[in-house]
């Protein structure tokens, strides 16, 4: 119980930090986002009243005379009301609407890709680490090449080879636009088909980390006493691999999920851009090129909260797979 409470406590603090960072960034940096934003807003046909100005100033900082604390308070209350302002690049849509339309795409893409990468990586890593010196094991260092390839470059190469040259997969978009999004087989299979290349990019680029982590941990785990005990007990090798070695070696990989998810999300932002994927990453970049500061901040906040949420879930799950954490609390 305490373990859970402590985790929740940490994530509450992290959440607050992210929100505050979001508040602080525009205020700390040079430039006058409010003006640019309002100019663009009026260009787009929005009416700019004193209140609008104030609202955006609360969101982004700017030349308000209010003391910082008041601004912070306004900002927090607006957030709590779910008011992140209006997007200018998608005027007159609200930032929250733009984000909630694109969020599921990213969550599903990144979620599934991460899951696949983790499962494959952990399995390969386990096998490689189980037999040190096997050909698979000696190839593991080569996976660092995959891991060092920039996501965007990899995705462009994949598009070029698999989509343009071989015509196997669509290179753009999240689904066949002829279809209506919904829970029907056509749409889902189309989404899967369109999502294949972006997912492949993420899987390929993040696989190396998982393999390496798992393989190294297997190395350490194999020299543990309980593995020796298991051998001496005359357990069949497959049991030892599964229940004794891999089961323990996977723990740090799960515990290190935060780091890897951060990397994958970062990578997927660029990947989405390359694939015109309707996810939140392309929204973020679109927002940046259009100086759509409200959307930019909103997306960042959502991404951060999503990553925090995923980590919270993993941390809680970790409590289940590693009995020691439960007691340590």
């Amino acid at each position, binding site marked *: 119980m305490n373990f859970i409470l402590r985790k929740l406590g940490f994530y509450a603090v992290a959440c607050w930090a992210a929100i505050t960072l979001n508040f602080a960034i525009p205020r700390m940096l040079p430039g006058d986002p409010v003006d640019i934003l309002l100019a663009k807003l009026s260009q787009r046909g929005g009416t700019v009243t004193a209140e609008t100005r104030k609202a955006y100033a609360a969101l982004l900082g700017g030349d308000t005379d209010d003391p910082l604390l008041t601004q912070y308070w306004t900002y927090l209350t607006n957030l709590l009301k779910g008011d992140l302002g209006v997007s200018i690049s998608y005027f007159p849509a609200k930032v929250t609407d733009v984000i909630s339309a694109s969020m599921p795409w990213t969550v599903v893409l990144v979620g599934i890709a991460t899951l696949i990468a983790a499962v494959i990586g952990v399995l390969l890593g386990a096998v490689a680490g189980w037999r040190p010196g096997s050909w698979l094991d000696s190839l593991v260092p080569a996976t660092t090449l995959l891991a060092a390839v920039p996501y965007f470059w990899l995705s462009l190469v994949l598009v070029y080879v698999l989509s343009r040259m071989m015509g196997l997969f669509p290179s753009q978009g999240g689904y066949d636009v002829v279809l209506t999004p919904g829970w029907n087989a056509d749409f889902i299979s189309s989404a899967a088909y369109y999502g294949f290349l972006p997912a492949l990019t993420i899987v390929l680029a993040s696989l190396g980390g998982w393999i390496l982590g798992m393989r190294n941990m297997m190395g350490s785990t194999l020299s543990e006493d*309980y593995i020796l005990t298991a051998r001496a*007990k005359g357990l069949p090798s497959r049991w030892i691999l599964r*229940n*004794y070695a891999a089961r323990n070696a996977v723990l740090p990989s799960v515990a290190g999920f935060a780091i890897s998810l951060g990397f994958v999300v970062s990578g997927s932002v660029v990947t989405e851009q390359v694939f015109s994927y309707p996810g939140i990453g392309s929204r973020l970049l679109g927002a940046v090129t259009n100086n759509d500061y409200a959307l930019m901040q909103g997306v960042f906040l959502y991404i951060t909260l999503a990553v925090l949420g995923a980590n919270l879930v993993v941390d809680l799950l970790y409590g289940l797979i590693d009995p020691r954490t439960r007691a340590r609390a």
Partner: protein
Amino acid sequence: MSTTTTVTPQQRRTAREPVLSVRDVTVVYETERPVTAVEGASFELGRGEILGLAGESGCGKTTLAYAVNRLHLPPARIASGSVTFHDRSGENVDVLALQDEALRRFRWSKLSMVFQGAMNALNPVRTIGAQLDDTLRAHTSGTDRHTRRERCADVLVRVGVDPLRLRSYPHELSGGMRQRVMIAMAMLLEPQIMIMDEPTTALDVVVQRDILREIVRLRDELDFAVVFITHDLPLLLEISDRIAVMKGGRIVELDAARTLYTAARHPYTRKLLGSFPSLSGDRGAFIRTGAVDEPEELP
């Protein structure tokens, strides 16, 4: 190589019916500069006997124990010798010749082991019950879950651990309890030999006592032979029937405990004995004078 280091065949042999014969076992660590960790070790273990194996750190005790159980992985290699297990049924098993499946079956059911640092010998993420159950399942086919559970609870009771603990994870137990669980696990298949490699070194003196008492009691009850490894000679003198002293990979002296204490023949044995001031006895002339020569160990 000198004659004084040789153990006579008579010493090696046991008065009881032998359950294990180790002949001239040599183990080499094939590193850049090969290390011969055990050289020509021979001894016989009698049924139900407690054989103590003493010697300073690094003299090859663990290496010898692993050789008997074929646990060595490269770079270690059993260069020569033979290990023969004399089954109760009368069958003789050449342990060094066993292959995969046969070896797997041999392990634990005939000869089990409690490891040095047994505190870490339990898988931290599985319950005690699951780990005991694994052992049963690996060696007995066709038993149902219930029977196995009964059996596991049974051995725990024997070592004085509450069977409720089957559902506990290792970290939820104290060091002493973990050690007991390991001993329970070692007894699970009623093997004829148990090798215990410093099973109590990491423990508190008091807990240590409790466990030793348990081992001796169980031995009396179940009649398995024990090879007890430690560098704590006074302890061995208390519990073993016979004691082997190792130095630099060789067994330099092997004799009944009492004989060894009163009439050690090898100078090394005598020096070892002298290193333990007696608790209740005399101080001894050399204590606190600072006069005794401080042995100059080489790095």
